[in-house]
């Protein structure tokens, strides 16, 4: 055996499969392809789907889901879950309304609402990351708590008199295009989250925690701080989505966005994130959100009721998590492939002992 002082004796291929395979034969690409297929089908077959307003309304509808899906993806990759996001949306909506009604300008009120979202995330994060409570139980609790505060503050009233300038901003489009303005902050955040998850040491830690939090802890990943940061992000982005939601519909209500948490989670899981943590990529998730949006938009244009959309989303969700397991079970029943190729080392093994070790595959 070579020692640590000697020069490396062999080199390895970085990847076992060519680039195109690694890019195309993935769960994410399957979701993207499905989304593209549904869009093409809808353009061809659904009247008005290619109409000028479809894309605007579609993007406006899914914008809150797109936004919250960003931090939710990271949260679920660490193996946790945040069910309180829609309640934080509701709370930020109410705060924006109440503060604005009390004479505060929209930006100032929105800033306070964002801070409230941050505080909500801090409560979740503290209980989950530092007290060590299960996120499912904690966020069921805070789901009720935050929504309860929102409803408690405003009752069944709605606050609707927002300065038009700000409402217009929420419903406006970028220049002459049909892309809503909200896509700009979303785009910035999306880039930020992609870098955070896929190109930073923090993101590597996120995956390690999800795959095996004990091993992550043993290699010096600060598991608690990572989770705390993610719940903070989840809180503040949810508050942002709540502000957008309020301004878009020009209405601050306690029950705004009720049930959105399940839609976000459904989209994230559909996009290929494993509920066990450790697996998933952001482009798949964003495709998952768009897929759900396109299906409901197309069905609405076909004047199919919302209910069918629910059924389809539910079926997609169940199928997307069941299918990989069924396929894995089926492939393990098949007879094993022929014996693996003999190892081709760049140098022959130095002693008989290591020659007895079976290796898999061959060098490329």
């Amino acid at each position, binding site marked *: 055996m070579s020692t640590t002082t000697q020069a490396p004796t062999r080199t390895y291929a970085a990847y076992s499969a060519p680039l195109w395979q690694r890019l195309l034969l993935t769960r994410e690409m399957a979701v993207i392809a499905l989304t593209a297929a549904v869009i093409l089908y809808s353009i061809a077959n659904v009247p008005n789907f290619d109409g000028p307003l479809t894309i605007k309304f579609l993007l406006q509808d899914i914008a809150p889901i797109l936004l919250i899906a960003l931090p939710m993806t990271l949260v679920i990759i660490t193996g946790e879950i945040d069910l309180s996001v829609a309640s934080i949306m509701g709370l930020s909506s109410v705060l924006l309304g109440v503060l604005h009604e009390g004479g505060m300008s929209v930006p100032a009120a929105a800033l306070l609402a964002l801070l409230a979202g941050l505080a909500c995330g801090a409560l979740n994060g503290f*209980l989950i990351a530092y007290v060590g409570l299960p996120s499912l*139980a904690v966020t069921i609790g805070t789901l*009720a708590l935050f929504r*309860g505060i929102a409803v*408690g503050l405003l*009752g069944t009233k709605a606050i609707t008199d927002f300065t038009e300038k700000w409402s217009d901003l929420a419903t406006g489009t970028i220049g002459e295009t049909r892309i809503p303005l909200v896509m700009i902050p979303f785009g910035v955040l999306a880039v930020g989250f992609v870098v955070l998850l896929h190109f930073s040491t923090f993101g590597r830690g996120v995956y390690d925690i999800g795959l095996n939090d004990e091993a992550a802890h043993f290699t010096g990943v600060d598991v608690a701080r990572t989770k705390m940061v993610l719940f903070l992000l989840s809180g503040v982005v949810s508050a942002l989505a709540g502000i957008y939601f309020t301004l878009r519909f020009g209405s601050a209500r306690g029950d705004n966005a009720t049930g959105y948490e*399940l839609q976000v989670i459904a989209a994230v899981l559909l996009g290929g994130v494993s509920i066990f943590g450790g697996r998933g990529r952001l482009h798949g998730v964003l495709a998952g959100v768009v897929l759900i949006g396109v299906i409901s938009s197309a069905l609405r244009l076909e004047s199919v009721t919302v209910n069918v959309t629910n059924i389809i989303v*539910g079926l997609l*969700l169940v199928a997307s*998590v069941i299918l990989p397991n069924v396929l894995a079970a089926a492939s393990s029943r098949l007879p094993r492939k022929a014996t693996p190729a003999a190892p081709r080392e760049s140098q022959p093994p130095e002693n008989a002992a290591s020659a007895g070790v079976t290796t898999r595959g061959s060098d490329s």
Partner: protein
Amino acid sequence: MTTPTQTPHAEVSTGEALLVQPSRMSPTRRALTTVLRSRELSIFLVLVAVVVLATTKNNSFLFSSDGWRNFLLNPSILVLLAVGQGVVIITRNVDLSVGSVMALTAYLTGRLFVDHPGLPIVAVIAACLLLGAVLGLVNGILVAYGKVPALVITLGTLYIYRGIMLTWAGSDRINAGDLPREFLRLGTRSVLGVPMLTIVAVVVLAVVGYYLHTARGGRELYAIGSDPDAAVLYGLPVRRRLLAAFVLSGALAGLAGALYTARYGTVSSGVGSGIELQAVAAAVIGGIAIFGGSGTVWGAAIGAFLLVTINRALPSLGIEDFWQRAVVGALILGAIVLDRVLATRQARKLAESRDRS
């Protein structure tokens, strides 16, 4: 190591004795200590406190025929759901689809009475139980054989079942006028001052509670939730038990749907939405650990009573009832933080008792 001057047992507190050497206590004392230290009793005392507080502010909260009736009647439906949910959570799973199942069977009840006016009430209720059981079975099969967490599966079926209900109902609404009078009477009738629905809920609770405590199958549910891998190694029929738990939860949600229709007389599209989280909350507040293996359905039922009663008590206590959900949320958080504190204390006691032995 023990100090040589003292025997190890002399310094053991009652709480620790109950933990490490329960057999050293007399049976009566053991039973008494177990009850006194139980989560069920403490949550029951909280319930009593809420009722007493609300009644002192407003006499009619309990001491009026309406007050008494509502106290017993309002929680019954949530009790049924909490019992089913409790059994599922004990196995380290969760059933989020109960609200949608309840909506489906609530509508089924109305539909059956509208389409087949002569149908006996028992047959309708049986149909609801059956439909609920089938929907629960679907959940159970997907969870037990698909090896996917129940959270995801039942989140999916929450959508699917609700979608089916809405599609089936369309813009239909079931109104009291569509329903036979005897059926509606079922929802409001009392026997010896106790509403029928409450009796149904208590009977279900007693049967399930007794089964969990004294039947092999019941104990196996706890074992599965306590350590699923060990349960497999042990050779327990894990899949069959999981199916049974989900079927029970579905069937009870089905029953709850029928009783909902009897109680309120109308079925709109929003029936039971969000109630799944209340059922989970009731179970957690009642002391069922969210990761399974411990707790009782008695606790879940008391938790359900507490949730509903707090809701009704808030106005009497001078708080707008809009704050009810916030109180519920705070209760859930309080319950799980308390569980953690107690568990940490217990672990420390066990470690100390190891040092001494």
